[in-house]
Every structure is written in C-alpha cells, then in structure tokens.
C-alpha cells in the first residue's frame, strides 16, 4: 500500500501543487486514501475563481495600501 504514495506530489496538477499546505490525516488505513487526497487537493484551485480573500479573520487595522509596486 505504501507504493501508491510514490511520486504523489509529482502527480498533482500545477495548480494542486501550489495550493496551501494542509494535512490530510486518515484515522484508518484505506486503499482509497491517495485518490481521496488527490481529489481534495485538485478541487482547491477554485480559489482562483472570483476574488480570493484569504484569512479567516477580518483586518484589525487598515494601514497598508494596495499601491505598492
């Protein structure tokens, strides 16, 4: 079962590789875990649609402009 993890990162799409670091931890062994992770990772490029607003918190102050080169 360890074999299917080989080259996992290289099997991701370019967008999938750029997605934010996340751990997917399985509480039990399953032959579907790699497929599940790949599906989850590949679904995350939706961040590129519309405006991406990251951060779970609101800004506390607003001192920084958006006009820096």
């Amino acid at each position, binding site marked *: 079962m360890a074999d299917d*993890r*080989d*080259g*996992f*990162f*290289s099997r991701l799409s370019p967008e999938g*590789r*750029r*997605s*934010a*670091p*996340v*751990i*997917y*931890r399985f509480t039990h062994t399953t032959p579907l875990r790699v497929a599940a992770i790949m599906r989850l990772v590949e679904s995350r490029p939706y961040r590129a*649609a*519309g*405006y*991406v*607003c*990251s*951060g*779970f*918190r609101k*800004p506390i102050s607003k001192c*920084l402009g*958006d006009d*820096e080169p």
Partner: protein
Amino acid sequence: MKKKLERIGGELFKPLTAAEQKRITAGFTTTTATTIFETANPNPDFSRDGDRE
C-alpha cells in the same frame, strides 16, 4: 418588478485580475492549528507563492 437582464459575461461581472487586486491579508491564518501538507515528496517546494508569480 422585472429588471432588464444583463449578460453575465459583461465587463461589470468579470473578476479582477490578480494585478488589480493585491492581497493584503495574504496569510492563511486561522483560529485553529495550521497544518502542513504531507506528501511523499520529502522536499515540497515552499518557495513559490501567489505574489511571486
């Protein structure tokens, strides 16, 4: 009341390009523990992020 229906592909409804919207809150901060991507690759490429592309 019925409005005039505009085409969804109109200019007004396009998302801004990345250049038009510079992210200020670029951190993936959460109130829960941040976790790290675990892969079979022992050296994932952390050197790239959206602002460098």
